[in-house]
Protein backbone atom coordinates (compact mmCIF):
# COMPACT_ATOMS: atom_id res chain seq x y z
CA UNK A 1 0.00 0.00 0.00
CA UNK A 2 1.24 3.44 -0.90
CA UNK A 3 1.24 5.91 1.97
CA UNK A 4 1.95 9.64 2.03
CA UNK A 5 3.10 11.13 5.34
CA UNK A 6 3.11 14.92 5.72
CA UNK A 7 5.58 16.22 8.28
CA UNK A 8 6.37 19.70 9.54
CA UNK A 9 9.56 21.09 10.95
CA UNK A 10 8.93 23.22 14.05
CA UNK A 11 11.09 25.20 16.48
CA UNK A 12 12.38 23.22 19.43
CA UNK A 13 10.41 25.03 22.10
CA UNK A 14 12.78 23.73 24.79
CA UNK A 15 15.41 26.03 23.31
CA UNK A 16 15.91 29.62 24.35
CA UNK A 17 13.31 31.58 22.41
CA UNK A 18 13.79 35.14 21.21
CA UNK A 19 11.29 37.18 19.28
CA UNK A 20 12.08 38.37 15.78
CA UNK A 21 12.79 42.03 15.19
CA UNK A 22 9.35 42.70 13.73
CA UNK A 23 7.73 40.93 16.68
CA UNK A 24 5.63 38.67 14.47
CA UNK A 25 7.44 35.41 15.16
CA UNK A 26 10.61 33.97 16.60
CA UNK A 27 14.11 35.01 15.64
CA UNK A 28 15.11 31.91 13.68
CA UNK A 29 18.83 32.58 13.79
CA UNK A 30 20.45 29.87 15.95
CA UNK A 31 16.97 28.47 16.67
CA UNK A 32 17.06 24.66 16.59
CA UNK A 33 14.32 22.94 14.58
CA UNK A 34 12.92 19.45 15.08
CA UNK A 35 10.30 17.26 13.43
CA UNK A 36 6.90 18.05 14.94
CA UNK A 37 6.15 15.51 17.66
CA UNK A 38 2.90 14.00 16.42
CA UNK A 39 4.33 13.90 12.88
CA UNK A 40 7.04 11.53 14.14
CA UNK A 41 4.30 9.21 15.31
CA UNK A 42 2.50 9.59 11.95
CA UNK A 43 5.69 8.62 10.13
CA UNK A 44 6.22 5.60 12.37
CA UNK A 45 2.61 4.50 11.81
CA UNK A 46 3.06 4.91 8.06
CA UNK A 47 6.27 2.88 8.07
CA UNK A 48 4.62 0.08 10.05
CA UNK A 49 1.58 -0.05 7.75
CA UNK A 50 3.84 -0.02 4.68
CA UNK A 51 5.99 -2.82 6.09
CA UNK A 52 2.92 -4.89 6.91
CA UNK A 53 1.46 -4.52 3.44
CA UNK A 54 4.65 -4.51 1.39
CA UNK A 55 4.16 -0.90 0.40
CA UNK A 56 6.10 2.30 0.63
CA UNK A 57 6.02 5.68 2.37
CA UNK A 58 6.55 8.96 0.56
CA UNK A 59 7.17 11.84 2.91
CA UNK A 60 6.06 15.43 2.16
CA UNK A 61 7.01 18.68 3.80
CA UNK A 62 6.44 22.35 3.10
CA UNK A 63 8.98 24.93 4.18
CA UNK A 64 12.32 26.60 3.52
CA UNK A 65 15.67 24.96 2.83
CA UNK A 66 16.12 23.76 6.42
CA UNK A 67 13.15 21.40 5.94
CA UNK A 68 15.44 19.11 3.91
CA UNK A 69 16.98 18.06 7.20
CA UNK A 70 13.59 16.79 8.44
CA UNK A 71 12.97 15.01 5.14
CA UNK A 72 16.44 13.44 5.27
CA UNK A 73 15.66 12.17 8.76
CA UNK A 74 12.41 10.59 7.53
CA UNK A 75 14.30 8.96 4.68
CA UNK A 76 16.82 7.56 7.18
CA UNK A 77 13.95 6.09 9.18
CA UNK A 78 12.65 4.25 6.13
CA UNK A 79 10.63 6.49 3.82
CA UNK A 80 11.27 5.58 0.18
CA UNK A 81 11.51 9.13 -1.12
CA UNK A 82 10.61 12.68 -0.23
CA UNK A 83 8.81 15.66 -1.74
CA UNK A 84 9.72 19.19 -0.69
CA UNK A 85 7.32 22.08 -1.33
CA UNK A 86 10.10 24.61 -1.34
CA UNK A 87 8.94 27.82 -2.98
CA UNK A 88 8.85 31.10 -0.98
CA UNK A 89 5.26 31.47 -2.21
CA UNK A 90 4.29 28.63 0.16
CA UNK A 91 5.60 30.47 3.24
CA UNK A 92 3.49 32.07 5.92
CA UNK A 93 0.28 30.28 5.03
CA UNK A 94 -2.57 29.60 7.40
CA UNK A 95 -3.96 26.07 7.75
CA UNK A 96 -6.20 26.43 4.70
CA UNK A 97 -3.45 27.69 2.38
CA UNK A 98 -0.95 25.08 3.56
CA UNK A 99 -3.55 22.31 3.27
CA UNK A 100 -4.35 23.44 -0.28
CA UNK A 101 -0.70 23.14 -1.31
CA UNK A 102 -0.13 19.78 0.36
CA UNK A 103 -3.34 18.34 -1.10
CA UNK A 104 -2.24 19.35 -4.59
CA UNK A 105 1.16 17.73 -4.04
CA UNK A 106 -0.26 14.51 -2.61
CA UNK A 107 -2.91 14.44 -5.35
CA UNK A 108 -0.25 14.10 -8.06
CA UNK A 109 0.17 10.43 -7.11
CA UNK A 110 -2.24 7.64 -6.25
CA UNK A 111 -2.03 7.05 -2.50
CA UNK A 112 -4.13 4.64 -0.45
CA UNK A 113 -3.59 6.60 2.74
CA UNK A 114 -2.34 10.02 3.78
CA UNK A 115 -1.08 10.44 7.34
CA UNK A 116 -0.37 13.68 9.17
CA UNK A 117 0.35 14.50 12.77
CA UNK A 118 -2.67 15.65 14.74
CA UNK A 119 -1.41 19.16 15.38
CA UNK A 120 1.73 21.22 14.95
CA UNK A 121 3.58 22.20 18.08
CA UNK A 122 4.02 25.76 16.83
CA UNK A 123 0.85 27.10 15.16
CA UNK A 124 -1.35 24.35 16.60
CA UNK A 125 -4.27 24.58 14.17
CA UNK A 126 -4.86 20.82 14.04
CA UNK A 127 -6.30 21.39 10.59
CA UNK A 128 -3.85 20.23 7.93
CA UNK A 129 -5.06 16.64 7.66
CA UNK A 130 -8.74 17.38 7.40
CA UNK A 131 -8.21 20.24 4.95
CA UNK A 132 -6.15 17.92 2.72
CA UNK A 133 -8.97 15.37 2.95
CA UNK A 134 -11.52 18.01 1.99
CA UNK A 135 -9.59 18.86 -1.17
CA UNK A 136 -9.14 15.21 -2.08
CA UNK A 137 -12.76 14.35 -1.25
CA UNK A 138 -11.64 11.53 1.07
CA UNK A 139 -12.85 10.73 4.57
CA UNK A 140 -10.58 11.76 7.43
CA UNK A 141 -10.22 11.13 11.14
CA UNK A 142 -8.42 13.48 13.52
CA UNK A 143 -6.60 12.41 16.70
CA UNK A 144 -6.13 8.78 15.72
CA UNK A 145 -4.93 6.41 18.45
CA UNK A 146 -5.22 3.15 16.51
CA UNK A 147 -5.35 1.94 12.89
CA UNK A 148 -6.20 -1.58 11.73
CA UNK A 149 -6.39 -2.25 8.02
CA UNK A 150 -9.33 -4.33 6.81
CA UNK A 151 -8.57 -6.12 3.56
CA UNK A 152 -11.11 -7.04 0.93
CA UNK A 153 -10.19 -9.07 -2.13
CA UNK A 154 -6.58 -9.18 -1.03
CA UNK A 155 -5.99 -5.46 -0.59
CA UNK A 156 -6.79 -2.97 2.15
CA UNK A 157 -10.25 -1.55 1.49
CA UNK A 158 -11.04 0.14 4.77
CA UNK A 159 -9.51 0.91 8.12
CA UNK A 160 -10.83 0.44 11.62
CA UNK A 161 -9.80 3.64 13.34
CA UNK A 162 -9.74 4.58 17.01
CA UNK A 163 -10.17 8.30 17.64
CA UNK A 164 -9.48 9.91 20.97
CA UNK A 165 -12.35 11.89 22.47
CA UNK A 166 -12.44 13.96 25.63
CA UNK A 167 -12.75 12.36 29.06
CA UNK A 168 -10.91 9.16 28.27
CA UNK A 169 -13.41 7.74 25.76
CA UNK A 170 -12.43 6.59 22.28
CA UNK A 171 -14.60 6.43 19.17
CA UNK A 172 -14.10 3.35 17.01
CA UNK A 173 -15.13 3.73 13.39
CA UNK A 174 -14.60 2.28 9.94
CA UNK A 175 -13.47 4.56 7.12
CA UNK A 176 -13.19 3.63 3.47
CA UNK A 177 -9.80 3.98 1.82
CA UNK A 178 -8.27 6.14 0.51
CA UNK A 179 -8.47 8.30 3.62
CA UNK A 180 -6.54 10.88 5.60
CA UNK A 181 -5.67 10.06 9.20
CA UNK A 182 -4.28 12.67 11.60
CA UNK A 183 -2.23 10.71 14.10
CA UNK A 184 -2.08 11.48 17.82
CA UNK A 185 1.21 11.35 19.70
CA UNK A 186 1.50 8.17 21.72
CA UNK A 187 -0.06 5.80 19.17
CA UNK A 188 3.21 3.84 18.83
CA UNK A 189 6.88 4.00 19.78
CA UNK A 190 8.82 5.70 16.99
CA UNK A 191 12.01 3.92 15.93
CA UNK A 192 15.48 5.38 15.84
CA UNK A 193 17.43 5.72 12.62
CA UNK A 194 20.05 3.04 12.03
CA UNK A 195 23.47 3.84 10.65
CA UNK A 196 22.53 1.87 7.57
CA UNK A 197 19.34 3.91 7.21
CA UNK A 198 21.27 7.16 7.50
CA UNK A 199 23.71 6.03 4.80
CA UNK A 200 20.89 4.90 2.50
CA UNK A 201 19.02 8.16 2.98
CA UNK A 202 21.83 10.06 1.31
CA UNK A 203 21.03 8.30 -1.96
CA UNK A 204 17.25 8.74 -1.79
CA UNK A 205 15.45 11.32 -3.86
CA UNK A 206 14.07 14.60 -2.53
CA UNK A 207 11.86 16.02 -5.28
CA UNK A 208 11.24 19.76 -5.20
CA UNK A 209 7.84 21.20 -6.17
CA UNK A 210 6.86 24.77 -6.96
CA UNK A 211 3.36 26.27 -7.19
CA UNK A 212 3.60 25.96 -10.99
CA UNK A 213 4.30 22.22 -10.65
CA UNK A 214 1.08 21.97 -8.63
CA UNK A 215 -0.94 24.10 -11.04
CA UNK A 216 -1.61 26.58 -8.25
CA UNK A 217 -1.57 30.36 -8.39
CA UNK A 218 0.88 31.84 -5.83
CA UNK A 219 -1.92 34.23 -4.84
CA UNK A 220 -3.87 31.35 -3.25
CA UNK A 221 -0.85 30.08 -1.33
CA UNK A 222 1.21 31.13 1.66
CA UNK A 223 0.69 34.49 3.30
CA UNK A 224 -0.92 35.94 0.17
CA UNK A 225 -3.56 33.19 0.13
CA UNK A 226 -4.32 33.34 3.85
CA UNK A 227 -7.00 35.30 5.63
CA UNK A 228 -5.38 34.71 9.00
CA UNK A 229 -2.49 37.07 9.69
CA UNK A 230 -0.29 37.08 12.77
CA UNK A 231 0.25 40.67 13.90
CA UNK A 232 2.52 39.95 16.84
CA UNK A 233 3.58 37.33 19.34
CA UNK A 234 4.47 37.88 22.98
CA UNK A 235 5.53 35.88 25.99
CA UNK A 236 2.66 35.60 28.47
CA UNK A 237 3.39 37.74 31.52
CA UNK A 238 6.00 35.61 33.30
CA UNK A 239 4.96 34.31 36.68
CA UNK A 240 1.81 36.38 36.61
CA UNK A 241 0.02 35.46 39.78
CA UNK A 242 2.74 33.12 41.00
CA UNK A 243 4.84 34.11 43.99
CA UNK A 244 8.32 32.95 43.08
CA UNK A 245 10.18 31.79 46.17
CA UNK A 246 13.79 32.83 45.95
CA UNK A 247 17.00 31.46 47.38
CA UNK A 248 18.84 28.16 47.20
CA UNK A 249 16.89 24.90 47.13
CA UNK A 250 16.76 24.54 50.91
CA UNK A 251 15.71 28.15 51.57
CA UNK A 252 13.14 28.26 48.77
CA UNK A 253 11.48 24.94 49.63
CA UNK A 254 11.36 25.80 53.34
CA UNK A 255 9.70 29.10 52.44
CA UNK A 256 7.25 27.23 50.22
CA UNK A 257 6.26 24.80 52.97
CA UNK A 258 5.76 27.74 55.33
CA UNK A 259 3.49 29.43 52.76
CA UNK A 260 1.54 26.23 52.16
CA UNK A 261 0.97 25.82 55.91
CA UNK A 262 0.38 29.38 57.05
CA UNK A 263 -0.91 31.27 54.03
CA UNK A 264 -2.65 28.70 51.81
CA UNK A 265 -3.38 26.32 54.71
CA UNK A 266 -3.26 23.21 52.56
CA UNK A 267 -0.61 21.28 54.50
Amino acid sequence: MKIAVCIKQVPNSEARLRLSRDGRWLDEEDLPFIVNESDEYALEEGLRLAERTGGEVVVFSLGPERVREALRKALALGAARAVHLADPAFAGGDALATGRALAAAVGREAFDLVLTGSQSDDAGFGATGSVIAGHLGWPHVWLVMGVELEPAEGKPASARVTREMESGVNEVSRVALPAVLAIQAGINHPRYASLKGIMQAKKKEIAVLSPADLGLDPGELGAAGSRLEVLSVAFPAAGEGAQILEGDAKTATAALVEKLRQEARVL
Partner: protein
Amino acid sequence: MTAQEGQAGQDGQAGPAGQDGGPAGRGRRIWVVPQLRDGRVTRVSWEAVAAARRLAGALAGSAAPAPLRPVRVDAVLLGSGLDAAASEVARREVAAVLVADHPALASYTPGAWIGVLAPAIDAERPDYVLFPHTYQTVDFVPRLAQRAGTGLLPEVTGFAAGGEPAGGDGLVWTRPVLGGKLQATVRVRGAGTVLVSVQSGSFQADAPPQAAADADAGAKLRPLAVDPSQARPDREILGYEEAAAQQVDLTKAGVIVAVGRGVGGADKLGPIEELARALGAEIGASRPVIDSGWLPRERQIGSSGQTVSPRLYIAAGISGAIQHLVGMKGSAVIVAINKDPSAPIFSVARYGLVGDLHELVPALTAAVKAARG
Protein backbone atom coordinates in the same frame (compact mmCIF):
# COMPACT_ATOMS: atom_id res chain seq x y z
CA MET B 1 -10.73 48.50 5.28
CA THR B 2 -14.20 47.62 4.13
CA ALA B 3 -14.13 43.90 4.32
CA GLN B 4 -17.82 43.38 3.94
CA GLU B 5 -18.47 45.60 0.99
CA GLY B 6 -19.84 44.01 -2.08
CA GLN B 7 -20.79 40.80 -0.44
CA ALA B 8 -24.24 39.54 -1.23
CA GLY B 9 -26.50 39.18 1.73
CA GLN B 10 -24.29 41.08 4.09
CA ASP B 11 -24.99 44.73 4.60
CA GLY B 12 -22.39 45.45 7.26
CA GLN B 13 -20.86 48.80 6.46
CA ALA B 14 -21.90 48.74 2.84
CA GLY B 15 -25.48 49.90 2.82
CA PRO B 16 -26.78 53.41 3.47
CA ALA B 17 -27.16 54.20 7.13
CA GLY B 18 -30.14 52.60 8.75
CA GLN B 19 -31.06 50.58 5.73
CA ASP B 20 -30.37 46.94 5.10
CA GLY B 21 -28.10 46.62 2.12
CA GLY B 22 -27.91 42.97 1.10
CA PRO B 23 -30.53 40.90 -0.61
CA ALA B 24 -31.20 39.05 2.65
CA GLY B 25 -32.12 42.41 4.19
CA ARG B 26 -30.50 42.02 7.57
CA GLY B 27 -27.69 43.21 9.78
CA ARG B 28 -24.63 41.41 10.94
CA ARG B 29 -25.06 37.99 12.37
CA ILE B 30 -23.16 35.56 14.57
CA TRP B 31 -23.89 31.88 14.89
CA VAL B 32 -22.78 29.75 17.78
CA VAL B 33 -22.85 25.96 17.51
CA PRO B 34 -23.01 24.32 20.96
CA GLN B 35 -21.79 20.76 21.36
CA LEU B 36 -23.89 18.20 23.19
CA ARG B 37 -22.80 15.30 25.33
CA ASP B 38 -25.46 12.81 26.37
CA GLY B 39 -28.08 15.27 25.17
CA ARG B 40 -26.81 18.11 27.33
CA VAL B 41 -25.04 21.29 26.30
CA THR B 42 -21.41 21.08 27.46
CA ARG B 43 -19.85 23.66 29.77
CA VAL B 44 -17.40 24.90 27.16
CA SER B 45 -20.34 25.40 24.79
CA TRP B 46 -21.91 27.84 27.25
CA GLU B 47 -18.59 29.65 27.23
CA ALA B 48 -18.82 29.83 23.43
CA VAL B 49 -22.35 31.24 23.74
CA ALA B 50 -21.03 33.91 26.12
CA ALA B 51 -18.17 34.63 23.69
CA ALA B 52 -20.71 35.07 20.87
CA ARG B 53 -22.69 37.57 22.91
CA ARG B 54 -19.57 39.53 23.77
CA LEU B 55 -18.46 39.43 20.15
CA ALA B 56 -21.82 40.86 19.13
CA GLY B 57 -21.30 43.71 21.56
CA ALA B 58 -17.83 44.42 20.20
CA LEU B 59 -19.06 44.36 16.59
CA ALA B 60 -21.98 46.65 17.32
CA GLY B 61 -19.62 49.19 18.81
CA SER B 62 -16.91 48.93 16.17
CA ALA B 63 -16.49 49.99 12.55
CA ALA B 64 -16.99 53.71 12.63
CA PRO B 65 -18.90 54.28 9.38
CA ALA B 66 -21.57 51.71 10.20
CA PRO B 67 -24.69 52.64 12.06
CA LEU B 68 -24.77 51.31 15.58
CA ARG B 69 -27.15 48.45 15.51
CA PRO B 70 -27.51 45.23 17.37
CA VAL B 71 -25.68 42.24 16.01
CA ARG B 72 -27.84 39.18 16.05
CA VAL B 73 -26.68 35.98 17.78
CA ASP B 74 -28.34 32.72 16.78
CA ALA B 75 -27.52 29.29 18.14
CA VAL B 76 -27.40 26.33 15.76
CA LEU B 77 -28.03 22.87 17.17
CA LEU B 78 -27.38 19.58 15.39
CA GLY B 79 -28.46 16.15 16.56
CA SER B 80 -31.40 13.88 17.04
CA GLY B 81 -34.02 14.31 19.75
CA LEU B 82 -33.04 17.87 20.57
CA ASP B 83 -36.16 19.18 22.33
CA ALA B 84 -34.61 19.46 25.78
CA ALA B 85 -31.29 20.87 24.61
CA ALA B 86 -32.97 23.35 22.24
CA SER B 87 -35.18 24.68 25.04
CA GLU B 88 -32.17 24.96 27.32
CA VAL B 89 -30.31 27.04 24.72
CA ALA B 90 -33.38 29.13 23.89
CA ARG B 91 -33.53 30.31 27.50
CA ARG B 92 -30.20 32.04 27.02
CA GLU B 93 -29.64 35.39 25.35
CA VAL B 94 -29.83 34.28 21.74
CA ALA B 95 -32.21 35.63 19.11
CA ALA B 96 -33.14 32.20 17.79
CA VAL B 97 -32.19 28.56 18.03
CA LEU B 98 -31.88 27.06 14.57
CA VAL B 99 -32.42 23.34 14.96
CA ALA B 100 -31.38 20.50 12.68
CA ASP B 101 -33.05 17.57 14.41
CA HIS B 102 -32.90 14.42 12.33
CA PRO B 103 -32.15 10.72 12.81
CA ALA B 104 -29.27 11.07 10.33
CA LEU B 105 -27.65 13.31 12.94
CA ALA B 106 -27.97 10.84 15.81
CA SER B 107 -24.21 10.21 15.81
CA TYR B 108 -21.58 12.80 15.08
CA THR B 109 -19.51 12.30 11.96
CA PRO B 110 -17.69 15.07 10.08
CA GLY B 111 -19.56 14.21 6.88
CA ALA B 112 -22.94 14.55 8.57
CA TRP B 113 -22.11 17.78 10.38
CA ILE B 114 -20.47 19.40 7.36
CA GLY B 115 -23.26 18.17 5.08
CA VAL B 116 -25.72 20.22 7.14
CA LEU B 117 -23.60 23.20 8.19
CA ALA B 118 -21.90 23.95 4.86
CA PRO B 119 -25.12 24.62 2.90
CA ALA B 120 -26.56 26.52 5.87
CA ILE B 121 -23.52 28.79 5.98
CA ASP B 122 -23.62 29.15 2.19
CA ALA B 123 -27.24 30.26 2.32
CA GLU B 124 -27.07 32.61 5.31
CA ARG B 125 -23.44 33.82 5.29
CA PRO B 126 -23.18 34.72 8.98
CA ASP B 127 -20.19 36.96 9.73
CA TYR B 128 -18.87 34.58 12.37
CA VAL B 129 -19.66 31.03 13.41
CA LEU B 130 -18.37 30.21 16.90
CA PHE B 131 -17.66 26.72 18.19
CA PRO B 132 -16.25 25.47 21.47
CA HIS B 133 -12.66 24.29 20.82
CA THR B 134 -13.00 20.55 21.47
CA TYR B 135 -11.68 17.32 20.01
CA GLN B 136 -14.91 17.08 18.02
CA THR B 137 -14.78 20.56 16.54
CA VAL B 138 -11.09 20.24 15.61
CA ASP B 139 -12.15 17.08 13.78
CA PHE B 140 -14.65 18.83 11.49
CA VAL B 141 -14.43 22.64 11.62
CA PRO B 142 -11.26 23.03 9.48
CA ARG B 143 -12.79 20.86 6.79
CA LEU B 144 -16.04 22.82 7.04
CA ALA B 145 -14.01 25.98 6.43
CA GLN B 146 -12.37 24.37 3.40
CA ARG B 147 -15.70 23.17 2.02
CA ALA B 148 -17.66 26.37 2.65
CA GLY B 149 -14.80 28.66 1.60
CA THR B 150 -14.71 30.54 4.89
CA GLY B 151 -11.88 31.81 7.06
CA LEU B 152 -10.64 29.66 9.93
CA LEU B 153 -9.52 30.92 13.32
CA PRO B 154 -8.96 28.05 15.77
CA GLU B 155 -8.49 28.10 19.53
CA VAL B 156 -8.99 31.74 20.38
CA THR B 157 -8.63 32.89 23.97
CA GLY B 158 -9.85 36.45 23.53
CA PHE B 159 -10.54 39.34 21.20
CA ALA B 160 -10.43 43.09 21.33
CA ALA B 161 -11.68 45.93 19.22
CA GLY B 162 -8.13 46.61 18.19
CA GLY B 163 -6.10 49.50 16.96
CA GLU B 164 -4.77 49.42 13.44
CA PRO B 165 -4.06 47.25 11.66
CA ALA B 166 -7.01 45.15 12.69
CA GLY B 167 -9.28 42.99 10.59
CA GLY B 168 -12.04 44.41 8.39
CA ASP B 169 -14.34 44.71 11.38
CA GLY B 170 -11.66 46.20 13.62
CA LEU B 171 -11.10 43.09 15.72
CA VAL B 172 -7.86 41.47 16.81
CA TRP B 173 -7.80 38.03 18.42
CA THR B 174 -5.44 36.18 20.72
CA ARG B 175 -4.55 32.50 20.56
CA PRO B 176 -1.76 30.42 22.08
CA VAL B 177 1.13 29.21 19.94
CA LEU B 178 4.09 26.95 20.75
CA GLY B 179 1.99 25.11 23.32
CA GLY B 180 1.18 28.33 25.17
CA LYS B 181 4.78 29.53 25.43
CA LEU B 182 3.77 32.45 23.28
CA GLN B 183 0.53 34.29 22.73
CA ALA B 184 -0.17 35.43 19.19
CA THR B 185 -2.31 38.41 18.26
CA VAL B 186 -3.95 37.80 14.89
CA ARG B 187 -6.50 39.33 12.59
CA VAL B 188 -8.65 37.96 9.80
CA ARG B 189 -8.28 39.76 6.48
CA GLY B 190 -10.78 39.96 3.68
CA ALA B 191 -14.49 39.40 3.40
CA GLY B 192 -16.80 36.57 4.29
CA THR B 193 -17.66 34.20 7.09
CA VAL B 194 -15.03 33.21 9.65
CA LEU B 195 -15.24 30.00 11.69
CA VAL B 196 -13.83 30.51 15.19
CA SER B 197 -13.26 27.95 17.93
CA VAL B 198 -13.12 29.20 21.51
CA GLN B 199 -10.64 27.69 23.96
CA SER B 200 -12.09 26.31 27.17
CA GLY B 201 -11.80 28.62 30.17
CA SER B 202 -11.28 31.77 28.10
CA PHE B 203 -14.76 33.25 28.43
CA GLN B 204 -16.92 33.14 31.52
CA ALA B 205 -20.23 31.45 30.81
CA ASP B 206 -23.28 33.53 31.71
CA ALA B 207 -25.34 32.36 34.64
CA PRO B 208 -28.46 30.40 33.61
CA PRO B 209 -31.45 32.74 33.38
CA GLN B 210 -34.38 32.77 35.77
CA ALA B 211 -37.43 30.64 35.06
CA ALA B 212 -39.26 33.68 33.66
CA ALA B 213 -37.31 33.28 30.45
CA ASP B 214 -39.11 30.01 29.72
CA ALA B 215 -42.18 31.71 28.28
CA ASP B 216 -40.25 33.24 25.39
CA ALA B 217 -38.01 30.28 24.80
CA GLY B 218 -40.41 28.28 22.66
CA ALA B 219 -40.90 31.16 20.25
CA LYS B 220 -37.19 31.20 19.49
CA LEU B 221 -37.05 27.68 18.07
CA ARG B 222 -37.03 27.23 14.33
CA PRO B 223 -35.67 24.69 11.92
CA LEU B 224 -32.30 25.31 10.33
CA ALA B 225 -33.08 26.07 6.68
CA VAL B 226 -31.39 23.05 5.17
CA ASP B 227 -32.42 19.51 4.42
CA PRO B 228 -30.90 17.43 7.24
CA SER B 229 -31.03 14.34 5.04
CA GLN B 230 -28.05 15.90 3.25
CA ALA B 231 -26.05 14.63 6.19
CA ARG B 232 -23.60 12.15 4.71
CA PRO B 233 -21.80 10.12 7.36
CA ASP B 234 -18.24 9.57 6.13
CA ARG B 235 -17.27 7.07 8.80
CA GLU B 236 -19.20 4.13 10.12
CA ILE B 237 -19.38 4.41 13.89
CA LEU B 238 -18.68 0.98 15.37
CA GLY B 239 -18.81 2.02 19.01
CA TYR B 240 -17.24 3.90 21.87
CA GLU B 241 -14.83 2.45 24.38
CA GLU B 242 -13.03 3.51 27.53
CA ALA B 243 -9.52 4.58 26.59
CA ALA B 244 -7.98 2.94 29.65
CA ALA B 245 -9.35 0.99 32.54
CA GLN B 246 -9.48 3.76 35.11
CA GLN B 247 -8.10 2.08 38.21
CA VAL B 248 -6.69 5.31 39.61
CA ASP B 249 -9.28 7.97 40.31
CA LEU B 250 -7.23 11.13 40.55
CA THR B 251 -10.37 13.25 40.76
CA LYS B 252 -10.78 12.29 44.42
CA ALA B 253 -7.19 13.02 45.44
CA GLY B 254 -6.66 15.86 47.90
CA VAL B 255 -3.03 16.36 46.92
CA ILE B 256 -1.42 15.54 43.58
CA VAL B 257 2.24 15.63 42.61
CA ALA B 258 2.34 15.75 38.82
CA VAL B 259 5.39 15.31 36.64
CA GLY B 260 6.15 16.46 33.13
CA ARG B 261 8.73 15.79 30.51
CA GLY B 262 11.22 17.83 32.55
CA VAL B 263 11.68 14.90 34.94
CA GLY B 264 13.81 13.33 32.24
CA GLY B 265 12.97 9.64 32.37
CA ALA B 266 11.18 6.76 34.08
CA ASP B 267 14.34 6.05 36.08
CA LYS B 268 14.22 9.52 37.63
CA LEU B 269 10.80 9.21 39.28
CA GLY B 270 12.10 8.03 42.66
CA PRO B 271 12.33 11.47 44.29
CA ILE B 272 8.85 12.31 42.94
CA GLU B 273 7.47 9.18 44.61
CA GLU B 274 9.16 10.14 47.86
CA LEU B 275 7.62 13.62 47.76
CA ALA B 276 4.20 12.08 47.06
CA ARG B 277 4.64 9.70 50.01
CA ALA B 278 5.63 12.56 52.34
CA LEU B 279 2.53 14.50 51.28
CA GLY B 280 0.14 11.55 51.11
CA ALA B 281 -0.36 12.50 47.47
CA GLU B 282 -1.28 10.71 44.27
CA ILE B 283 1.09 10.92 41.33
CA GLY B 284 -0.16 12.39 38.08
CA ALA B 285 1.53 13.27 34.82
CA SER B 286 1.26 15.38 31.71
CA ARG B 287 0.79 13.75 28.35
CA PRO B 288 4.43 13.52 27.17
CA VAL B 289 5.31 11.45 30.24
CA ILE B 290 2.52 9.01 29.42
CA ASP B 291 3.36 8.88 25.71
CA SER B 292 6.97 8.11 26.60
CA GLY B 293 5.77 5.20 28.71
CA TRP B 294 7.26 6.56 31.95
CA LEU B 295 3.90 6.26 33.76
CA PRO B 296 0.65 4.44 32.86
CA ARG B 297 -2.09 6.30 31.01
CA GLU B 298 -4.42 6.17 34.02
CA ARG B 299 -2.12 8.81 35.58
CA GLN B 300 -2.65 11.32 32.77
CA ILE B 301 -4.06 14.73 33.66
CA GLY B 302 -5.36 17.09 30.97
CA SER B 303 -7.82 17.30 28.14
CA SER B 304 -7.33 13.70 27.09
CA GLY B 305 -6.87 12.44 30.64
CA GLN B 306 -8.49 13.19 33.97
CA THR B 307 -9.67 16.61 35.11
CA VAL B 308 -8.68 17.20 38.70
CA SER B 309 -9.17 19.87 41.34
CA PRO B 310 -7.26 18.86 44.48
CA ARG B 311 -6.57 21.30 47.29
CA LEU B 312 -2.85 21.15 46.42
CA TYR B 313 -1.33 20.45 43.00
CA ILE B 314 2.42 20.38 42.62
CA ALA B 315 3.56 20.46 38.98
CA ALA B 316 7.18 19.41 38.57
CA GLY B 317 8.83 19.79 35.18
CA ILE B 318 5.53 20.59 33.48
CA SER B 319 5.72 23.58 31.15
CA GLY B 320 1.94 24.04 31.11
CA ALA B 321 0.63 23.37 27.61
CA ILE B 322 -3.01 24.36 27.37
CA GLN B 323 -4.05 20.69 27.10
CA HIS B 324 -2.59 20.12 30.55
CA LEU B 325 -3.85 23.35 32.09
CA VAL B 326 -7.49 22.60 31.28
CA GLY B 327 -7.21 19.43 33.36
CA MET B 328 -5.81 21.01 36.53
CA LYS B 329 -6.33 24.73 36.72
CA GLY B 330 -9.35 24.24 38.98
CA SER B 331 -6.99 23.08 41.75
CA ALA B 332 -7.23 25.21 44.89
CA VAL B 333 -3.49 25.82 45.25
CA ILE B 334 -1.00 25.18 42.46
CA VAL B 335 2.76 25.02 42.96
CA ALA B 336 4.97 25.06 39.87
CA ILE B 337 8.53 23.78 39.83
CA ASN B 338 10.28 24.52 36.55
CA LYS B 339 13.68 25.59 35.30
CA ASP B 340 12.13 28.00 32.80
CA PRO B 341 10.71 31.09 34.55
CA SER B 342 8.67 31.94 31.44
CA ALA B 343 6.89 28.54 31.38
CA PRO B 344 3.11 29.04 31.12
CA ILE B 345 2.55 26.87 34.20
CA PHE B 346 3.65 29.84 36.33
CA SER B 347 0.71 31.85 35.04
CA VAL B 348 -1.78 29.53 36.77
CA ALA B 349 0.37 28.76 39.82
CA ARG B 350 0.09 30.50 43.17
CA TYR B 351 3.64 29.62 44.19
CA GLY B 352 6.66 28.96 42.05
CA LEU B 353 10.11 27.45 42.43
CA VAL B 354 12.46 28.23 39.58
CA GLY B 355 15.34 25.80 39.18
CA ASP B 356 16.37 22.20 38.68
CA LEU B 357 13.61 19.91 39.89
CA HIS B 358 16.12 17.16 40.66
CA GLU B 359 17.51 19.45 43.31
CA LEU B 360 14.27 21.13 44.38
CA VAL B 361 12.05 18.05 44.75
CA PRO B 362 14.28 16.24 47.30
CA ALA B 363 14.70 19.55 49.17
CA LEU B 364 10.93 19.98 49.23
CA THR B 365 10.47 16.44 50.53
CA ALA B 366 12.92 17.18 53.33
CA ALA B 367 11.15 20.46 54.13
CA VAL B 368 7.76 18.74 54.26
CA LYS B 369 9.10 16.03 56.56
CA ALA B 370 10.77 18.61 58.78
CA ALA B 371 7.58 20.66 59.05
CA ARG B 372 5.53 17.61 59.92
CA GLY B 373 8.06 16.61 62.55
